[in-house]
């Protein structure tokens, strides 16, 4: 939600100062406190969590990177895409090509065995380059046309991945190496600087900073000229063009950034699972990502993270802690129970809260603010009076600006 400050601050020195404070990432003391609390929570989790919990958190963080990517393209720039699975696949196979085991038999898929810090950025870059290559064709098309083309991309992609056996290992997939510090791969217990770290902890140390960087990057890009151009294109193409936004450049920018993040996510996914199956990158995966941005919150960084938790972590949590009986509910296996839940959530959120989970939180905060306002003044304050108070709390100002924004 911190990335939603798209509306121009109203005139007036006081409110301009308030807007300045809130557009900065850590502008208010409240945010600093929240950040510190969050870091403490992460540190506690890191030291006490078991392997199952790390498994859930690590995989969710990997997916969250791609959810961020889709949110850039669909949420901020408003371009309908079902193609995210394809770009994740591209990232995964770039990673396996550069970082996979060098082949020992002539039929084994290629791999150069290069270190982590080469294949990870390369995966993002190759996916982004492919995005740049496909973009000009795809982005000529508007709305659902782009949706259908991206669907074709995924279908064709799965076919390619299944058949390019020299790289992908064909139908049964291929292996991939985990990142390694020196000679020791991180999917086993290691001593780092005298501290024994489990595989889950080490992966967490690799993935969490990447996710944090990606989130910070997206949040910041959306405050720049480029990010505001994305949102202008989404809200009104003609209006954006009149204000001097280059529509093609803006859409391409969003498309490339989105592909880059998807590529990084795909590479981490391959490496974390030490195996890549070509059938992973199908339409179902893309739809899960779409569900994630709708449920979490469209055009919101926090929404992306919440969406990833909802769609990718919650099912695992239910599984691991057997909250859904292993036999399922009403004859549904537990995996399908999750599908029903997110299918329903897509519909319910679209109908009743288009801003997603983040929108719910925003509403809750607005309600709390009004209640406290009412208690203080004893009167019946209108929403406008609560929000337009120029000298008031910066948080009120920001909430007013974003609470009404649809999409």
């Amino acid at each position, binding site marked *: 939600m911190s990335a939603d400050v798209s509306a121009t601050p109203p005139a007036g020195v006081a409110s301009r100062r308030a807007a300045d404070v809130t557009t900065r990432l850590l502008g208010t003391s409240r945010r600093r406190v929240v950040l510190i609390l969050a870091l403490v929570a992460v540190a506690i989790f890191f030291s006490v969590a078991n392997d199952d919990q790390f498994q859930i958190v690590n995989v969710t963080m990997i997916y969250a990177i791609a959810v961020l990517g889709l949110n850039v393209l*669909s949420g901020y720039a*408003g371009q*309908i895409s079902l193609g995210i699975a394809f770009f994740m696949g591209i990232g995964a196979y770039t990673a396996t090509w550069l970082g996979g085991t060098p082949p020992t038999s002539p039929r084994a898929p290629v791999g150069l065995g290069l270190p982590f810090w080469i294949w990870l950025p390369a995966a993002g870059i190759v996916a982004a380059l492919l995005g740049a290559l496909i973009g000009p*064709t795809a982005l*000529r*098309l508007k*709305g*659902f*046309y782009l*949706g*259908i*083309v991206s*669907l*074709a991309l995924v*279908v*064709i992609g799965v*076919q390619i991945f*299944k*058949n390019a056996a020299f790289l992908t290992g064909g139908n049964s997939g291929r292996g991939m190496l985990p990142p390694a510090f020196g000679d020791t791969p991180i999917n086993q217990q290691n001593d780092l600087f005298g501290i024994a770290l489990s595989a889950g902890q080490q992966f967490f140390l690799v993935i969490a900073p990447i996710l944090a960087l990606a989130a910070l990057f997206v949040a910041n890009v959306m405050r720049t000229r480029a990010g505001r151009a994305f949102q202008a294109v989404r809200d009104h*193409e*003609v209006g954006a*063009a009149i204000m001097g936004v280059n*529509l093609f450049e803006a859409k391409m920018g969003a498309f490339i950034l989105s592909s880059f993040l998807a590529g990084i996510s795909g590479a981490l996914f391959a490496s974390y699972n030490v195996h890549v199956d070509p059938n992973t990158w199908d*339409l179902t995966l893309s*739809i899960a990502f*779409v*569900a994630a941005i*709708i449920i979490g919150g469209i055009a919101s960084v926090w929404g992306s993270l919440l969406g990833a938790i909802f769609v990718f972590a919650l099912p695992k949590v239910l599984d691991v802690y057997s909250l859904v009986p292993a036999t399922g509910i*009403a*004859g*549904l*296996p537990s995996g*399908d129970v999750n*599908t*029903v839940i*997110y*299918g*329903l959530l*897509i*519909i319910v959120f*679209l*109908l009743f809260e*288009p801003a997603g989970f983040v929108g719910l939180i925003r509403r809750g905060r607005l309600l709390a603010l009004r209640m406290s306002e009412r208690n203080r003044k004893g009167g019946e304050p209108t929403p406008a009076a609560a929000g337009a108070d120029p000298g008031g709390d910066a948080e009120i100002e920001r909430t007013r600006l974003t609470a009404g924004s*649809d*999409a």
Partner: protein
Amino acid sequence: MAFFFQIFLAGIAAGCIYALVALGFTIIFKSSGVINFAQGELLLLGAYLVSAGVSQWHLNFFLALFIAIAITVAIAVAFERFALRRMIGRPAFSVLMLTIGLDTLLLTAVIAIWPDVLYAPAAPYSTTAGFDVGGVHITINDIWTIIVTGILCAALYAFFRYTRYGLAMRAAALDQEAALAVGINVGLVNTFSWAIAAAIATIGGFFLAAHLSGVNPGLGVIALVAFPAIILGGIDSVLGAVVGGLIIGIVQQLTAGYENTALIHLFGQSFTLTDKLGPSFDAIAPYLVMLVVLLIRPYGLFGKRKVERI
């Protein structure tokens, strides 16, 4: 040559099924501007209901078909009335995602209700019987597919051309505001278009199941091939949906028929499509056709060309 006619016929039969699904897409799109991603799963549900009606509940085929149509139509109408109607004025993106939500729900419902059960296709005739004409094997199923599609297209044509409701739907498709101004209930038109699309999808689902000699949860994905069909034909053209469906069906079957055997001579080498592109290339051939169409003629063969300056 007999081989060519054989797969050409298979292509027409497959094309008829795609045309039925494509018609559903087009009718909904024309009346309300919504692309219905759930069309494939409506077809899936319809196919399961028909098969289950005959094999599980031991109903007469036509009764089973009637019940299947009634249920899918009820679902489609309820979705249009209670979900889509609330989305008027919202971005196309949200509307499209809403249909994806329905798609997910229907697919899971089918898996939940009929787990691991493979029903034989139900039909009032034998789906495997056939006869030979000049070396070409023609199955009864192919003939019925073609005949029924032809009848449905003619009926739809007559409906849109001569009936009060058909004309109202065309008017609403042309200009919603003008249609409202002359007293057409546009909401009812939208509901009606969803009902027609669901009914056609069920019939298409029955034929697809009969064609593949069984129902399975993958039918909905096969029906997605109707997307290339509508893009090829022009997304707002009913005639285009039929022609597009037929062309896509024929292209797909020809690719399937020749990819393993036909030798291509290129750069002094001889190879088949399968050698170079791997097996089941036919599954993606329709999508490649679609990409080419989108590049050179995005409004399709029969679509209305939109002039946009941005």
